[in-house]
């Protein structure tokens, strides 16, 4: 096995509710090698999104540790986790999450700008070309279709040259045909960049394109991380 890029150990997440404490994640353990792809699947409310958030350093577990690119992000301050995300993480969301007031190009430039990277514009233009939107660089999100918006989001995710790309239901808001094209793009770019891909999805076909699968049931792993059948 190659060097692990992402490792979770004994992750537990509990939240207080009016009816008492609710356990969302319970005892998640896995190790993912660099360059691999992982699908996290499970029914609604099984804890997929919470797990994604913790793995990406967006949230902290109640107990347990996460190592991302060799560093334990669960012991970092919010400030440090943000820097870790800026350096190593890319995101693609179900609802695209583009900034309405910025053009397609400016949205793609954003991660590099946040890092203070000078070559942001050229890189962003290149990635928009690679997702086939070179004609749409000056368009605002509301002027783009759903599929186009998700392509901008994918360009933005890869423009930051992440070690790990987290995708939360990336095709969930798209029709089947568009969804398939977007998924193709995601996997192609992932291969080209040798990034690690962590995907949360309902879509069995999409999960089947990943090398590894974790199935969650009520916050627990139904079985240890397995290589995908497909």
């Amino acid at each position, binding site marked *: 096995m190659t060097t692990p890029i992402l490792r979770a150990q004994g992750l537990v997440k509990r939240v207080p509710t009016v009816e008492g404490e609710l356990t969302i994640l319970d005892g998640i353990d896995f190790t993912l090698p660099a360059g691999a792809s992982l699908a996290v699947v499970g029914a609604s409310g099984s804890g997929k*999104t919470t797990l994604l*958030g913790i793995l990406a350093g*967006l949230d902290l577990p109640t107990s347990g540790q996460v190592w991302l690119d060799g560093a334990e992000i669960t012991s970092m301050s919010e400030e440090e986790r943000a*820097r870790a995300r800026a350096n190593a*993480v890319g995101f693609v*969301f179900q609802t695209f999450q583009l900034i309405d007031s*910025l053009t397609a190009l400016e949205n793609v430039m*954003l991660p590099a700008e*946040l890092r203070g990277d000078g070559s942001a514009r050229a890189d962003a233009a290149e990635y928009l070309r690679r997702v086939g939107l070179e004609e749409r660089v000056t368009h605002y999100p509301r002027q783009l279709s759903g599929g186009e918006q998700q392509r901008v989001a994918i360009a*933005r995710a890869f423009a930051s040259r992440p070690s790990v790309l987290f995708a939360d239901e990336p095709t969930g808001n798209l029709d089947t045909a568009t969804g398939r094209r977007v998924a193709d793009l995601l996997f192609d770019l992932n291969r080209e960049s040798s990034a690690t891909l962590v995907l949360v999805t309902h879509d069995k076909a999409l999960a089947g394109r990943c090398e590894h699968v974790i199935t969650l049931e009520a916050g627990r792993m139904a079985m240890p991380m397995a290589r995908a059948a497909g």
Partner: protein
Amino acid sequence: MTLSLVLRLTARDWRAGELRLLLAALLVAVGTVSAISLFVDRLHRALLAESATFLAADAAISSSYEFPEAFREAARAADLGLAETIGFPSMVFAEKPGNFRSQLAGVKAVAEDYPLRGILRIADAPFGGAQVTRDTPERGEVWLDSRLFPALDVEPGDQVSVGYEKFTVRRALVSEPDRGGGLFAMGPRLLMHIDDVPATRVIQPGSRIDYRLLLAGDNQALQGVREAIEDQLRPNYRWISAREASPFIERAVGRAESFLLLGGLLAVLLAGIAVALGANRYAKRHFDHVGVLKTLGATPRSILTGYLGLLSLVGALGVALGLALGLLAHQGILIALGSFIPTELPLPGARPFLLGAITGLICLLAFAAPPLVALRRISPMRVIRRDLPGTTASTVATYGCAAAGALGLLVWYSGDVFLTFWLLIGGVGVSVVFAALALVLLRSGRTLGMQAGSGWRLALAGLQRRYRENTAQIVVFGFAIMLLLILLLVRTSLIDEWQAQIPVNTPNHFVLNVTPEEKDDVDALLRANADYEGPLFPMMRGRIVAVNGVDAAEFRRQRWAAGFRDDDDDDDDEGPSPDDIAPQQAEGEEEEEGEGRGRGGRGFGSRNLTFATELPENNVVVGGEWWDADSPERLVSLEDDYAQRRGFAVGDELSFDIGGLPMVATVSNLRRVEWDSLQPNFFVILSPGALEGFPATYMTSFHLPVEDKRFLNELIAAHPTITVIEIDAIIRQVQSIVDRVTGAVELVLYLVLASGALVLTASIQASRDQRMKEHALLRALGGTRRLIGGALAAEFAVLGAFAGIVAVIGAEVSVFSLETQVFDLGYTSRPWFWLVGPLFGAALIATVGVLATRRLVNTPPATVLREL
């Protein structure tokens, strides 16, 4: 975040219209404060310039002693303009074959540099057309008041004597700047050269003399000189600043200033609420942006610096534009007020601009910063979990900041802890009471709504559904309407009060020294030719020589030893009447600390005494009882303040010396006197029985329009020994000030109205997104545009009416405290406001609400649902 990113985000947000409300609110806050303070600054300068003409200088030192050379040296060192005058009463004689005339005159001796401020007006012949002159009397000549010509039976070119010296009468003196201003000259004026005074030999030890050192220059230099000679001033020299020279004006301006700043403050607080609402809405709309930026690696610190950078940009723009707006608005006011403000005024200082800029800054920090600062705590998880709460801005921080900002502004503007305290207590109390009332009203509204038609049912259900927001909105609207009502009520009563003080026929002339023989004739002449109701008041000079059998000098020594330092020495004033007609309000200035002239060494000075059977109008007995009209006892009534300063109480036995004759009277009551009334008022009034047999002269006041002033000539020709004092110029000045202040007060009301409308718009904007979504859904479900429009109008009208009800309650309570505690006015109840308040609230909020939500109703539901 990098600066370029901040700039780009700001530019985008601006284009998307998200910052407009914030900027507009900031503009109003900064613009209002700078316009008001610029205007007040100008008004001050204008009034100060006018006050200066009443003093003939920017400041003066007054004394019955000659000035030490150190005073002149200090003034010269500070590069101040310097002039000296000497004023004293003296008999003036004119002798022609077979005709010897004499008349008591108020002599003023001046040099070429007089006056430093204001102008002299003269005429070639008595009662002739006035012309402005820069000359002053040459040596050997005198200028006489027109009335002295018939009194002395002289013409220009004739000779008159003052003391041992003869002078040639050269011109008729129409007016000199410092004749009024609380320094009423005794008798008609004679103006002469200061170097001629020694030759007259009228100045002897013990003479009543007013030496004045007139000073002109900028305020700072004057203040410097005052401080430099402070130690030498007391107890014998009195510093008079231009403002102190016109006490009535000073008080009018003081009230106007309180009011204008209070009004300005209300406008700023309203704008502050709008800033807070604008910033909150902006922050809410940026929850997702921040979430995304964070997932992309933005650290909390960079989010914080980014949004603070954005806030600074908006703030800088708001302050710059606000100051420009304020400057423009104030220019507009100056143009609107036209001739009221002298055009040669120096440019306003930096203070108004500074005030505006700091207000903007405080508004930003206190009202806008908390929600934006809280953005740094938005969880990036929000991007994948939309159900997470957006804001983490703590309520304590938000309200604490706003309260601290509001409090800071309150204290800073009002400069008055009492006012601040009341407003603060009022603010907190009103919020709590308003919220409770609003909840009750909302709940009862829902019950009613169950039986109502569909439009109303929707409206009332909407109100109940968003009861938290609506309670807050009722509190905000209630506050806005309450502030408007307060301003309107206080303004109305202030203006009424001022105008009541100076009715059209306010007496503008006083006549003194009328002998008992002349009394009936003068009375008849006045009734026939002037606006005069009588009566003629008897008057005599007298001094208190003993208190309860203790010699006056000893009495004062004992009080001094007992630690009473507040009795002043202004008794020995300018002769018949002046202080009693319109006493100098600045008496407190004369409190003396040291063991000086009269301090224990001397008794009380002479005073004007009168007697009366009835309590005069504008007088209220505050201690003891007024006497029976036919009481044979010897009783005396004292002005309350006068008695307290000197340590006299009801029951004390005062011994008087009236023209060398002794008289003892018992203090029977103390009175409060309304000095602003411009009616003859007296510190000391005796019962008729007390003054029986004492020689008295008579005095009264009457109104005479400018065009009838030649009647004075006739009056004086018929009664050459009477003295007429003209105060019509002062009255005109006071009236013009009231007009000006009224204009300013109206301006403030408009500014507050603008701020109020801004708050309404801001709070409607705050609920706009939610409303849009609901209405789009309703329309998608088949609701007509009319139904939704009607429901919206009804919702806002009910909200407005509820806000109106709570506002009236708050306004009545606040106005009561303001009128009675701050402005010293009486409270008037206004039952009609209970109807007008809710109606006004409903109409105003329904109008603004319908206008602000018009787009919301007219946008196709598909567009709305897609956007949200």
